[in-house]
């Protein structure tokens, strides 16, 4: 074992940070003494699998990615349930407090900030009432599971990916759920209108209710200080014993700002995931802003983790150049996939297929003979193929006519007979 190892401190015991450590350990497990601070009192778990937990399809144990033993096996010091409050960049010390107010300090040579993001809460009257929550972590999930046992009416504000998963889970747990969405169709960040409408129909058939194009005026509480209804700008109301806000996330940059790291939408990082302000400090995941983008999906975080680990391991050749993102909805029985520039636009061409019989809709967006976007509903078998084509950026001119029908079709099937 090497002596006088460098010290690496990770702030944020989530998926981005721990994945970076895993990648680093794969390259060189001897380079650093590693210390991890996590605000949640849990080992690293798969946050994106909270929806199946809510839906009752998986247990919390099943979604743990790195049990405590993993940290131990890799000689990693963990401070779970301890929130980092201060970093002294001059002395290179991280300072955290626990629930009791006890302070823990850790010096670093390299600092990895993976502070993630926080749910955005609509600034409406009543947002602080009891029964109004976000959907972010295990605690929120447990709250929802408990509420479903005792209450009847749930309203989810936000018809995006997370909101729909929350709504589906609550419905499966017996609640009457209304999804309130400000836009004209669901998942408008990932789906076009046709797919969004198909999704709505499918979810309606399962029992969800929707208020699209609805603007929330306020949340109305009862005498106990618990929410009892949601009121819209048009004056109408919907009963609500539980309101889940899933209207977006904000990168957690409070700590970084206090450290006077340059932040703009997130902690601004270079192609090696080092902060532009301090080369000893890295930021990975939802808190980082790379080339102006703070990603909220898991795949880019993993790609960032790989590059950051590469750099931490002093390999020096990894570069992160941004990610193409794709989306899947984790609602059992609903297959949708969205990637790239699925809305098309200037200079883009669309190939569209619609199968009302099979409940399938597919749209591929092509620009300069390259696949630049895809939106699939009902049949996502070819999603990964499209995603590959998208990322590789190869010309699809030769296979364009077969593209819609998937990779399995021999590419010469559609060529004219010689």
């Amino acid at each position, binding site marked *: 074992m090497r002596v006088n190892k460098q010290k690496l401190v990770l702030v944020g015991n989530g998926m981005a940070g721990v994945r970076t450590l895993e990648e680093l350990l794969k390259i060189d497990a001897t380079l650093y003494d590693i210390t991890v601070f996590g605000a949640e009192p849990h080992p690293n778990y798969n946050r994106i699998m909270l929806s199946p937990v809510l839906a009752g399809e998986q247990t919390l144990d099943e979604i743990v990615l790195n049990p405590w033993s993993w940290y131990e096996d890799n000689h990693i010091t963990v401070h779970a349930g301890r929130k980092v409050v201060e970093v002294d960049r001059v002395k290179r010390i991280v300072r955290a407090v626990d629930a009791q107010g006890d302070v823990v300090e850790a010096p670093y040579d390299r600092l990895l900030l993976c502070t993630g993001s926080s749910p955005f809460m609509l600034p409406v009257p009543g947002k602080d009432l009891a029964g109004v929550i976000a959907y972010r972590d295990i605690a929120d999930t447990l709250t929802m599971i408990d509420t479903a046992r005792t209450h009847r009416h749930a309203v989810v504000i936000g018809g995006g990916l997370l909101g729909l998963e929350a709504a589906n889970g609550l419905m499966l747990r017996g609640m009457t759920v209304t999804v309130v969405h400000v836009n004209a169709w669901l998942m408008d960040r990932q789906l076009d209108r046709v797919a969004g409408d198909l999704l709505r129909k499918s979810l309606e058939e399962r029992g969800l209710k929707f208020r699209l194009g609805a603007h929330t005026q306020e949340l109305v509480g009862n005498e106990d200080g618990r929410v009892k209804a949601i009121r819209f700008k048009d004056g109408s109301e919907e009963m609500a014993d539980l309101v889940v806000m899933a209207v977006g996330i904000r990168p957690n940059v409070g700590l970084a700002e206090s450290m006077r790291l340059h932040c703009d939408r997130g902690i601004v990082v270079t192609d090696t995931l080092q902060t532009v302000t301090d080369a000893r400090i890295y930021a990975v995941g939802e808190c980082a802003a790379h080339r102006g983008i703070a990603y909220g999906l898991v795949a880019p975080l993993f790609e960032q983790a790989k590059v950051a680990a590469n750099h931490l391991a002093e390999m020096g050749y990894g570069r992160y150049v941004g990610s193409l993102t794709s989306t899947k909805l984790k609602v059992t029985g609903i297959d949708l996939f969205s990637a790239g520039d699925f809305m098309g636009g200037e200079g883009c*061409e*669309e*190939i569209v297929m*619609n199968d*009302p019989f099979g409940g*399938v809709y597919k749209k591929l967006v092509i620009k300069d003979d390259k696949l630049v976007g895809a939106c699939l509903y009902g049949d996502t078998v070819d999603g990964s193929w499209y995603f590959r084509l998208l990322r590789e950026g190869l010309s699809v001119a030769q296979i364009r006519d077969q593209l*819609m*029908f998937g990779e399995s079709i021999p590419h010469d099937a559609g060529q004219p007979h010689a």
Partner: protein
Amino acid sequence: MTDTRSTCPYCGVGCGVIIESEGAQITGVRGDPEHPANFGRLCTKGSTLHLTASAAVTMQTRLLQPMQRLQRGSAAASVPWAQALDVAADRFARIIADHGPDAVGFYVSGQLLTEDYYVFNKLAKGLIGTNNLDTNSRLCMSSAVAGYKKTLGSDAPPSCYDDFKDAQCLFIVGSNTAWAHPILFRRIEDARRANPAMKIVVIDPRRTDTCEIADLHLAIQPGTDVMLFHGMLHLMLREGWTQPAYIARHTSGFDALERTVRDCTPDQVAKVCGIEPSALIEATRLFANSPSTLSLYCMGMNQSSSGTAKNAALINLHLATAQIGKPGAGPFSLTGQPNAMGGREVGGMANLLSAHRDLANAGHRAEVAALWGVADVPAAPGKTAIEMFQAAADGEIRALWISCTNPAQSMPDQATVRRALERCEFVVVQEAFATTATCAYADLLLPATTWGEKVGTVTNSERRISRVRPAVPAPGAARHDWSAVADFATRLEARLPRRAPGTLFPYTLDDPAGAQAIWNEHRETTRGRDLDITGLSWALLDTAGPQQWPCPEDQATGPATGPATGRSLGKARLYEDGVFATPDGRARFHNAAYQPVAEARDERFPFSLNTGRLRDQWHGMSRTGTLGRLFGHVPEPLVQMNGQDMARLQLGDGDLVQVSSRRGALVLPVRASTEVGPHQSFIAMHWGEEYLSGQSSSGERIAGVNALTLPVFCPDSKQPELKHAAVRILKAELPWSLLAAAWLPADRLQATREALRALMARFAFASCVPFGAGGALQGGAAERSGVLFRAAAYEAPPAALLMEIEALLGLASDETLRYADVRRGQRRAMRLVRNASNAQEAQLEGFLLAGDTRAEAWIKTLLLDQLPAQSFGRQLLRPGATAPAGVAARGKVVCSCFGVTETAIATTLRSGTGSESERLASLQAGLRCGTNCGSCVPELKRMVRMTASEIASTPVPVAATA
């Protein structure tokens, strides 16, 4: 249910039909077992007549109100009859006053009844004083008329259908009898069966289905008939096969002809006609040496720039060999239309007067004037069909009245015809159907009665007059043609200088008695003429049945006593006494030298284009085109070519070609055919712009097949050469293609087709046809029909146009699977409908393939054969021609009556054994094909011959010898 005896409105065979009706609705049709033309048989077209008179077809296609179009190109608005006829009378009177009687013209039809014709004739020649009255018979029979008159002296086919059974040798010339006159072909088959020694020779550039029955087929080069006949006469003279005694006693002019045919040596004939000298000799031997030789001929002879010479040259052979005036012998012209004969009888042509009188004959003119009670009838010959439209195009004729015919479809050189219709100041179209191309040019549309509604008489090919009786009342405001014309005539009479003391048209309008009065007037004009029918009456026709002319008063036994059905009163056969209808009683040999076709093939236009009939369609298809099932045999327009030519031009079946002549061009798919010889091509005459069109390079709507044909006509008969034009055929480079088809409810089918038809001119090529399945004869399965739209273009049209087509075909539905790649011009839509009884099953109800249409091969089969489609799902949207497993095409329908397909027949044939006739019999017993109307029997025979039995051809295993 009520039964009404009447006749079939299609070809000149003149079959009797019994119309079944309930109230005002025709419900069925069957052959009249007592009618001497058909004895109960009907062909594919005749046996489906009632389906063309369904309420759905009537509501969507018939002209039901008089309509006036105040501005060309705008929609027509309905007007009351009185107003419509006053408008017409005003316009005609004004034009006649300003520009003289020859500034108006009447173009009528061989499908009108004799009574209709008579009134038209009297209107033009008696009242207005113009001979500008001609008919579509000009395109059909006028060469036969001229040929008869030049040789035998009278426009009278001397033979009768009974002669078939007495003939020992049958010469079928320029006639695809098997398709064009199916019931006569049944009688030929009967005669051959009864007399296996009977020899049949077919002379036709095409190897048609009629050749199936032939002992010898002479595939002569187009238009070389005269050379062939002269060569035959040359041989007869050389071999001593003529009948000098008959020639000497009964004919004149043989010497001159003898000199002419001297040069027509077998070698010369073989070279010009493109046949083997041995075949020429054999044909000549059969003709001259058979105990009785009967010639049957039709449009191949008539529609020619030397049509009269062809007819006369054939008649020459009959005269030279005395094959005339005896049972089973004679030159027998088969009439194309149901009443072309009747039209000629009343003189309804530009060069004729009533009862076969000649316009050129002053005595005849005086007779007719006297009969009508007018001072005179005009002497100047009127304009014949082609001349009439040319005159209208030149501004000489300013008003046209078109009745019961569709010149914007059927006349050659459509560019001129359309220019004429556009230039004409006032166009009246009197029609039963609102859907014909000509209707678009009308200022005034007058609704006419049609089959099942009309009252009067018709005369068929064998000079037999049948009564036409109404089974149902006229729909809407439709009126009998004679009634509307007589009504117009009396209104015009009031606006013109007085010609007679009373009215010339004293008929009871809108009452069958009016028609009978007209017929009686016509009968009186025949007194003493070759076609004397003074021995007949409607009452006699009712009791004794249809009768042949002549039947003068003294010949008929007077009013029948007791049941007289089937009694023959008229003359079955003419010239039995060797006395001909010439002043000296001698037949005249016609001496005309062979003239090649008017427009020979050359380097620029290296192919001959021939046109002709299909088995299951009639003329411009305003009636047959309403039935999807009649498109089973030939589903879509195409041009047939010889396979060798196609290989040379690197064309494949189904490729689009541009066929162009000096007059126009048109695009359609090509198909290799063994029927067509090298350097020749064939397009069915039916494909007018109603079914086959597109946009020409100059942006106009393409007028169908007759955009190509030429207006050159025979100098004697004035009949145009529709049977030959020189054309160029090149692959059409139209990379974007479209195919859309859907089943449609009967009450929307016709209207949908009409709406789609309007879109055809938006593409470089487009065709729009119905298709069908099922039917009453197939065990009561429901008759289903749909529409198929095919198009091609240089580039993809705007999506809105495709959406319009989809909407019309019911594809704009929630149940439609779709694929679209706008940039590549690819668009596919499949409408699946779940079975009402089993939701797990679904069928394709309609589809659209645009851009890449190669999937047609199996998608069309799924639709037309109504195969289960639920398992294909999104595979239906796949590009390319390869079908997922499980789609097998049924093939084209051969037997329309029972919907038996080529595939089914071939499958059955492969397992059959025995002789050809045994295999045919077991085929008919097993599948029922060819056992109803029999129209497909020639084709079945061909298939029997061509399809080797697998059982017969399988090598017998040889037992191993150990």
